[in-house]
């Protein structure tokens, strides 16, 4: 089983290498990561993907934006346990966008606005932001 997993990882690594060389020909790599559910696993996955994209291409060679809406906005709550990771990614250029519509909806439920991570940038609507980014050539990925 371990050997099988090892073989799979090697194969995937090779494919990553191919992808890297393919994209190396492009001038600009742009990825938008959508998060719209609040599970721990998805939050971790989104941050891992952002981190690994930067590792694969270099922080100066890839533009990444994480757009959070619906329950996915929990990732950008002020007291989210991933706060340190978000800060580190933001420092490396990853943009985090918080859906204003979602904030308004949560405000109705909570009776007060949720406290949002200061690293996040407010956008009117998360899904609209994603549409705009894809029109600009961003690749939409929903881990």
């Amino acid at each position, binding site marked *: 089983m371990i050997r099988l997993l090892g073989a799979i990882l090697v194969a995937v690594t090779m494919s990553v290498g191919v992808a890297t060389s393919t994209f190396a020909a492009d001038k600009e790599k742009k990825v938008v990561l959508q998060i719209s559910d609040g599970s721990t696993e998805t939050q971790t996955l989104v941050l891992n993907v952002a981190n690994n994209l930067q590792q694969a291409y270099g922080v100066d060679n890839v533009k990444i934006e994480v757009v959070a809406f619906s329950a996915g906005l929990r990732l950008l709550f002020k007291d989210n346990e991933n*706060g340190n990771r978000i800060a580190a990614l933001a420092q490396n250029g990853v943009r985090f966008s918080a859906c204003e519509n979602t904030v308004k909806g949560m405000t109705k439920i909570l009776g007060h606005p949720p406290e949002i991570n200061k690293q996040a940038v407010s956008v009117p609507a998360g899904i609209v932001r994603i549409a705009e980014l894809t029109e600009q050539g961003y690749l939409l990925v929903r881990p």
Partner: protein
Amino acid sequence: MNAIKRTLLAMACASAMGATVNTAQAANWLMLQGTEPGGTAARANVWGFVQVNYQADTSEPNSTGGYIPPKLLGPDLNTQQGFNVNRARIGVRGTPIPLDDKVNYFILLEGGNNGITQIDGSSVKFTDASVTLNHIPGARLRAGLFKYPGAEEGLQAIHTFDYVNFTEVSNQLLLERFPNRVHPGAGTNPAPCDPQNTPACNLNRFDGPVGAFRDVGVQLFDAFTFGNFELSYAAMAGNGNGLNFSDNNNKLDTYLYLSGEWLTGGGQGPWREGLKFFVWSQNGERQFDGNADGVYESYDRKRAGLGMKFLKKPWRFTAEYMTGEGMIWNGPDKPTWALVAAGDINPAHASNGLLAEGVGYYAEGGIYIPNTNFQVDLRYDYYSRLDGSQFQLDWKAWTLGLQYHFNKKTRATFNYAMRDVNAPNFGTGAGPNANLDGIGDRYSLQLTTIF
């Protein structure tokens, strides 16, 4: 473009699988048990664990063929070997509204066969039912039934405990028993499980389960991080009545706890690596008819301790020192807290635990053998019961442990405990030693799985 997208997706997924998870969930027991991780907690996270064991006690009977409780296996005390579903717990924890991390809850049910369920004949019992409010920075509030702040061995999550049985100092000095408060009869030895010619014991002298290191009350607590150093505190007031939901003596127990830990950066959750020092105290009163006059008296129950814990894989080490004044437990065969008949109705008698003292310590360590699934553990524990009195009993044990981790959630634990118990103020075969002589080694094999 589609091919590129597919490749990129594959890369992202593969990379995510191999990446290091770096959660920042606080790792001390106060925070792990009392709070949920911010921004990620579910409305209802179902979890639990099962522990099944086989134990064998090699103790010899006394000169008349009788067995005392330390020579029998708990909680039933009617055999020297056998299987037992020691713990079977299932619980739910989370945040009622996932958008509001400031409110957390924790519920846990025990269905195994141990001092929690055996004593009052219940099949399932709540061990935890609490709500935490995180609204005030620096002063989180937890209310309900939960583990009180105290010794590491009691406060830690039991499914992460590296041994099958507690040390004697934790088991006897800290794990509180609640025998009937009415004196069963003056001038007689009321022991329900005195040395038996066949292993057997009647435990109906208890009207409540063991305390399980828990109490019902309210606790203020929090943890503060300064660089690589974390300072934690807890202050609690509780009923002092163990797992029972309500108070029984119109007096509250108080608990204080302070810890400081240097974080070395590795591990997470219960296995966060660091060097921790802690100090704690507990104070309360218990009601008991100690002189058999039909009237309850109040007796102090004071406990205090300090210790340290180190974890930096592959090594770990723990040491604790604990003291106690009043309500010194003398074993399940002496629910009136007296060791001999002469002390039954005299709380000040040298054999009576109501006003006595106890002291003990343990040191243990282990190594996760690199590149294997094995872990080796070694522990020495000492407890002086009725410390300083004529009837002082010294409990000493070396425990050798070997664990095999099938995966991160399932492991087998083998323990070999070499035990030595004696009354130092009496010769061989005299006084308490007449029954203590012959206490032998104990083998334990336990399977633990967490879900």
